[in-house]
């Protein structure tokens, strides 16, 4: 089974597109591993809460945040492996339906951080878009090219509507250099809270 890049969007370019002109009302939570480095590479921001662990928890951190801050847009960007571990959280989000939450999965079909072993989504094995839809998330997007990415960026700009947004991006399995953000969890927590006007 090949771990070579087989097409798909460039992860760094995709993250940069999602975060371009982000606006102060957007807060971002990446899953651990590659999407965390991708978010750091797109430009550090106090409104990013980098997860270096807690695999399977990214979407739920996003849910708690979205419920607490309904006037802000909450963007979770995670990988297929991280999403698979927290797949039940899509069911939980499907019930809550916060309109200000977007969960975006960079799906390269591999566990990148551990040596590019194939994941369940490899070769179309598991369809995360169908999972999200089955969990009651009505707005789901399957992004396979630049035009699809541009349309997704437009939707995230407003992120208003009847419910949460789930997007799966077909991402190239090419690995990008690590860009490491702050890793002290207390610092990350306090700077995030201060940046949105809360007591650190």
């Amino acid at each position, binding site marked *: 089974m090949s771990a070579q890049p087989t097409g798909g969007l460039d992860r760094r370019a995709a993250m940069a597109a999602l975060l371009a002109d982000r606006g102060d009302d957007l*807060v971002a*939570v990446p899953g651990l591993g590659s999407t965390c480095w991708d978010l750091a590479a797109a430009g550090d921001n106090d409104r990013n*809460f980098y*997860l*270096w*662990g*807690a*695999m*399977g*928890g*990214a*979407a*739920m*951190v*996003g*849910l*708690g*945040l*979205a*419920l*607490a*801050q309904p006037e*802000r847009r909450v963007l979770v960007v995670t990988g297929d492996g991280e999403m698979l571990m*927290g797949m*039940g*959280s899509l*069911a*939980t989000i499907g*019930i*809550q339906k916060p309109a200000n939450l977007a969960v975006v999965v960079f799906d390269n079909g591999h566990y990148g951080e551990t040596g590019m072993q194939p994941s369940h989504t490899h070769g179309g094995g598991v369809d995360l878009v169908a999972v999200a839809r089955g969990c009651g998330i009505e707005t789901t997007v399957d992004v396979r090219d630049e035009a699809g990415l541009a349309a997704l960026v437009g939707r995230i700009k407003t992120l208003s509507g009847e419910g949460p947004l789930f997007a799966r991006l077909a991402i190239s399995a090419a690995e990008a250099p690590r860009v490491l953000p702050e890793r002290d*969890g*207390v610092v*990350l*927590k306090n700077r*995030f*809270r201060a940046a*949105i006007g*809360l007591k650190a």
Partner: protein
Amino acid sequence: MNASVAAVDWPEQLYATLKRAGIRQVGYVPDAGHARLIDRVRADPDIHDVVLSTEEEGIALAAGAWLGGQRAVLLMQSSGVGNCVNMLSLARTCRFPLLMMITMRGEWEEFNPWQQPMGSIVEPVMKLNEAEIYRATKPEEVEGLAERAVQHVFGDERIAALILSQQLIGKKVWTK
């Protein structure tokens, strides 16, 4: 139901404690011991009641709530503690305030032996995760312990486990 249980309505007191503490999100996997509190929370328009598919989701939910300026608590049965272990690293690494209210199975007069293995290690597991333990056995001590747990968690951004013992909750009635 004995006289002291009838006299002290501890589920109602727990709800009142949550309200005084300004809790705005309650994550839970249902347990019979939490049934009345869950009903109260679900009927409260000022609290987001979040039914979870597994208890570890709640650890991440509470972290997100705190990042967004809201206080959360988690309700679960003893078996759910085992589902939380790795995710507790999120609360510990970042010092997120985390209050877990845990109804016990597998101890006093348990009929189902499958509950015993996890029930017997709830307190050690929570202690290993740097949680302060508050164990309630009698109805009249629940509210005071809950208040102290709230102070520990939100006053100092720490983890606490309020353990609601099986003796407090009462024996599960098994009928065929």
